[in-house]
């Protein structure tokens, strides 16, 4: 009886969160209905024409735009996934630092950028990389270049530049979770390895890396599921760094949905693309989960 009561308490504690998830993640799904109507803001849905799959067909007709946007989304996400081991390496290196004070200092400094809003990041980038920016000024004064570089307006460099900014912003933050995972590894394993004569690098490769792999894979899996939202940064990064010179290489799916939905006012079309994106993301998550189960014998769900 006592056991049952504690179970009910636990359940009651969870209910508010379930309600929150329901309110903010499921109720908005009713908004999907707009994709099937020729909706104009200001005119009630009841007075709006039902058009079925018209806007999904449109999406197919606008395949050139969609293809470009998808390529950018996937490229940016792929590069950010490719960069995800950097947080692992960084966490391991931090962990290996002898001076705890210095470790905390580095960790704090690298975590800070995560809390800087994207508009400030843009201003910083403009201050650093614009034609009259710090980088150009230093390089020109050193006589290394004659004309200023314009990385923010260089289409060819866009994917790399954006990835570099994402890494700068998220490296320290991403390392926190791995530092926690490392802290969870049994210290006796290290002691035993030491006794067996394992060097520092060997201990890292034989104990630390395998110890944090499950965490890495869970995060990787979640990253893959959000591949169409181009990684952690997504819309805001896209929004602030967008300009006509790099437009064709930077515009990702979320920004496109915003542009057609809010800026142009094609709310129905934007919603249709949003739906397609959600469905593909769910499909990707299941695929990666199945793959993980098959290859590693583990899965998230």
């Amino acid at each position: 009886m006592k056991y049952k009561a504690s179970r009910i308490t636990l359940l009651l504690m969870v209910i508010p969160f379930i309600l929150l998830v329901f309110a903010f993640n499921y109720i908005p799904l009713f908004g999907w209905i707009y994709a099937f109507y020729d909706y104009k803001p200001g005119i009630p849905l009841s007075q709006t024409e039902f058009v079925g799959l018209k806007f999904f067909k449109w999406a197919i007709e606008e395949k050139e735009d969609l293809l470009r946007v998808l390529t950018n989304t996937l490229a940016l996400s792929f590069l950010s996934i490719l960069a995800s081991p950097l947080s692992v390496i960084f966490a391991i290196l931090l962990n290996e630092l002898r001076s705890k004070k210095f470790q905390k200092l580095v960790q704090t400094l690298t975590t800070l950028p995560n809390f800087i809003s994207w508009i400030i990041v843009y201003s910083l980038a403009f201050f650093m990389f614009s034609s009259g920016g710090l980088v150009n000024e230093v390089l020109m004064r050193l006589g290394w270049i004659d004309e200023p570089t314009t990385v923010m307006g260089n289409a060819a460099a866009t994917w790399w530049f954006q990835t570099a900014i994402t890494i700068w912003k998220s490296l320290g933050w991403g390392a926190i979770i791995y530092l926690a995972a490392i802290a969870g590894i049994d210290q006796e394993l290290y002691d035993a390895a030491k006794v067996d004569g394992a060097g520092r690098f060997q201990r890292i490769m034989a104990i630390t890396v395998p110890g944090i792999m499950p965490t890495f894979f869970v995060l990787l899996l979640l990253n893959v599921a959000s591949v169409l939202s181009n990684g952690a940064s997504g819309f805001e990064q896209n929004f602030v760094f967008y300009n006509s010179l790099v437009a064709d290489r930077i515009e990702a799916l979320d920004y496109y949905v915003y542009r057609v939905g809010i800026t142009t006012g094609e709310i129905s079309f934007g919603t249709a693309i949003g739906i397609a994106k959600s469905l593909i993301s769910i499909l990707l998550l299941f695929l990666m989960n199945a793959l993980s189960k098959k290859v590693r014998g583990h899965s998230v769900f």
Partner: protein
Amino acid sequence: MKLPARRPRLAILMTVMLTVLTGCGDAGEKAMKQQNARTETEDAALTTGKEPVTLKVQLSSVGNDFENTEVYNEIERLTGVKMNIEMYDEQKFKVELAGGDLPDIIQVPNKNMKELIEGGNIIPLDDLIKTNGPELQQPLYEKSLDYMRTFWSDNTNKLYMIPVQIGSSDFGFEQQVGFNVRWDYYKELGYPKIESIDDMVNVLAEMVEKHGTTKDGKKVYGVSMWNDWGTWGIRSMGLITGNGMYNVNTQQLVNDYTNAEHSSIWDTALFLYKAQQKGILDPDAFTAKYNDIVAKASEGTLISSIATWPFTRANAELLKEGPDKGFVTIPLEWGFTNVGGTSVSGWSDRAFAISANCKYPERAMDLINFLVSEQGSRLIGSGIEGVHWDYVDSKPVLKQATVALASAGGDDWKKTGIGMIANQQGLSDYSKLSDGGIVNLFNTPEVFATKLNSLNKDYVEHYGVKYPAEAYKRLVEQGKVKTLANIPQDVLSAMPSQPDDIKRIQTKVDELLVKGMPVVVLGSENDDAFKANRQELIDKLIEAGANTYFDWFKREYEQSRARLANR
């Protein structure tokens, strides 16, 4: 809710008593006192017996920094309506419209007129002006309200909107939009004549050659542009040349996208390309946002712009360095300057409407009635009677202290709130009111003369005029420069909102244009390559429907013109 303050009544009583006690010395004084009595009676009529309310108002180009200014407080005192101001933002507006959360009073963006009326988001005002719009029933507004019913009503023939800034317009103190350069540099070059886009670029190139770096060694550029105002930047040269969809030079409609010779778009492209060829185009010209341009202007790395606005801060600093240092608009003896004209429809995207969410539509109408009235317009443009201006010999005249305050600028001036809500002013600055004066008492040659700083003085002396804008005015009078008076503003304003397919085409064409322009400007090595690249982009624009868009525009323009003529 509290009852309204009774101060106005007391004020009238005191005025009447003073008049009785002191008697009337001369005719001028009598007229002045009668005037006072008249306006204060009106004040009382506006407030008597009405409870104070707070209304949420969405205003164009005005934020809540206007709140608690003297003009703001006076509006509240005279109407009993407190404005809770929200500045218009296109995206916020769209979201509010979609969610049914529009504020009590809005200023209608013309392109959203149809949804607002069709969806019942704004209410008809025909009955309300009968009960709460006494000023709007004056003959002065008859034509404008008739225009609103015919063209801005989604064919319902009802009155949904109250226009602002109706009447005639003229030059102010100085022209802010135009070819802005450093005056001392221009003087140094011997005031060269500028007769074309080529000349503009050449003058800038010479300036950069002489002043290629800032004091702290940063490279100076001649030309740049901001890119965060939609396609404003890439059409901006039309504000100088007069080319655009309605071409003031030919007085005809021109396809701005495809007509390379008479287009604001291709004029801008040519200007940027020539600048690039001379090596004076800022590498950030296609990435910079407005604030970036302001930063460049302030640190001295940019020496021209299409408007004085980015140089406001720079000008204040430069004036400390020398009496003739600063940025000014050079009057060119050709093209266009963005001023003038008379409009029945008033300013586009600014007409007032009351949303269906408003719980106090009568009070909202009271407020609108006041803002567009003679009294309201004068208050917005010139400040409070007795405080900022007064009647001298029965003529309304600004007080010297007000002029001094305006010239000094800063927080004390801002606190007055004068001129801050010109976008909500019913009658245009130069409209003549029943007291014989114009709405904006700052717009007189006498006041202009007191506003001149050392830079202005040097400028006006060179051109032999009394105030900076007069240099333009003279050219206009000589027929050399066109103004808004050469544009059929009321016909263009009467055009209906774009249907969905046309809207989509224009979006697509603009998108291609914004992306393609850098290729034409930066990717052309010589004039032939420029022409070829330009043609290639024009072909793409045509493929995306630029001609279909223009055909629609032309058809609707002709229809609106015919409808306007037949009224």
